[in-house]
């Protein structure tokens, strides 16, 4: 019983950090119509900033992390995203692959393959134990941060003029400009906001995902891929469904890894086949609800001819 609860708690913990990442990735998609594969490398850069300043005061270290991520976001926006504004989605996606790969290569050459340990606030990694079930402080914090960030973004996007302009600029920059929207400026602003979220993730991820205590060139890469999958499965067009998609992905991975036995064989009876099980679920969900698991009603209507 305690075991089951513990598995569930661990799964929710993983889900919550994925959800936070999904908010960031969902926002980038929302405002850039861009599946930003390089998002993970923004997080990586921030995490390196933290790891390389382990000996500095925590606040300074975090400030540096934000500075690095924001500067990199801005650089990407100016050097890559802006020129690509009118490119096809495939081109943009592959361009972000290339950028991601470039940043990974630079990190690899500069810092080496072996990870560097990140120490932010060790206290947060410690568990509280309630009735034999361990919950780590960072999990609670991640959930709070995810909810706050999500709420703030929702307000920004739906209640403010600049949010409206961001959405319009993302859907059709040319027309938005014809209406007087400073498309480039608002998109840049959105990229910076997504950068802020990336920096937040960079601070939280090393504590929240145990394997990420070490920062290496592929830091956050796997999480980015899984969250991207989750965001699409959940429904990428809406921030809420995207976020829930990320969350679900984490919970699914957590539960499956909790319940698949550690040995066994085909088909999918062993945790070795965890990925297969997860991806099979993804395929099934996509086939049943192509528009997204958490998108209410069929929005096919939107595609009226």
């Amino acid at each position, binding site marked *: 019983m305690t075991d089951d609860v513990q598995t569930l708690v661990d799964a929710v913990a993983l889900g919550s950090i994925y959800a936070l990442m999904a908010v960031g990735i969902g926002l980038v998609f929302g405002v850039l119509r861009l599946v930003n594969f390089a998002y993970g490398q923004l997080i990586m850069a921030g995490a390196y900033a933290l790891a390389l300043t382990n000996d500095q005061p925590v606040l300074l270290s975090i400030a540096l992390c934000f500075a690095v991520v924001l500067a990199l976001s801005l650089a990407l926006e100016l050097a890559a995203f802006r020129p690509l504004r009118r490119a096809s989605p495939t081109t943009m996606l592959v361009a972000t692959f290339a950028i991601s790969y470039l940043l990974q290569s630079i990190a690899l050459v500069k810092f080496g393959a072996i990870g560097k340990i990140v120490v932010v606030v060790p206290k947060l990694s410690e568990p509280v134990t309630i009735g034999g079930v361990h919950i780590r402080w960072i999990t609670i914090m991640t959930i709070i941060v995810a909810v706050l960030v999500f709420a703030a973004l929702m307000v920004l996007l739906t209640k403010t003029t600049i949010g409206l302009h961001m*959405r319009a600029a993302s*859907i059709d920059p040319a*027309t938005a*400009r*014809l*209406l*007087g*929207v400073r498309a480039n400026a608002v998109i840049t602003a959105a990229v910076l906001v997504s950068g802020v979220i990336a920096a937040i993730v960079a601070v939280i991820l090393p504590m929240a995902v145990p394997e990420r205590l070490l920062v290496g060139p592929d830091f956050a890469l796997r999480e980015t891929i899984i969250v991207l999958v989750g965001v699409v499965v959940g429904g990428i067009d809406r921030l809420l469904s995207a976020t829930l998609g990320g969350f679900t992905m984490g919970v699914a991975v957590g539960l499956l890894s909790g319940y698949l036995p550690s040995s066994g064989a085909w088909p999918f009876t062993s945790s070795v086949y965890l990925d297969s099980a997860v991806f099979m679920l993804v395929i099934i969900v996509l086939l049943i609800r192509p528009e997204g698991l958490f998108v209410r009603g069929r929005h096919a209507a*939107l595609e009226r001819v």
Partner: protein
Amino acid sequence: MLEVSGLEVRYGTVPAVRDLDLSVGRGEIVGLIGPNGAGKSTTLHAIMGAVRPSAGDIRLAGSSIRGRAPEQVVRAGVALVPEGRRIFTELTVEENLRLGLAGRRSKDGSAEALERVYELFPVVHESRSRHAGLLSGGQQQQLAIGRALVGEPDVLLLDEPSLGLAPTVVDTVFGALLAIRAQGVTILLVEQRAQRTVALADRTYVMSNGELRMTLGPGDAGDSRRMVEAYFGSS
């Protein structure tokens, strides 16, 4: 108010507009008609800064706006009802209208401007919280016109505003243009309804093949010979 001189626009190497001169005085309605592919929309886009002219100048109230970005042109007081509506289907009707406010220099009076549009196009009001993509074609066109009007521009450019509108609504729109003009707004109207345009406008330019062919006055509206000439060249 709006002056275009020697305008040339090319797509690739092919000129779509050649050596075009036209001017619209403050509070005037000027029509622009011509066959498909004549370069009418291209001209409007050039004024908006959405395409880059290869020659010529565009002046707004005396100062050149050539080379300015569209958002700057809008903020200088020009608004466009674009061809093909170009509304944001994923946003709600009201959000679409609010986008039209982006070019306003002052936020005062935005609410009233919205109200006036709602009054002009009741359908838009009824469906203000729906996704704009779900509107019928003509309803979307009304929205596109309304979106330009809420900005209360000094200069209003309309690219075939009557497209897809039911006859009663066309009446409404043309009536509204007169009313707006009365407030001193300058209007450049691209249309396919040649008769009505010529009758309504202070002056109507006829374009074909990228060039200005002739200028018609309101009196020519009933003159079918002149109108035929306008389209098929003088024979």
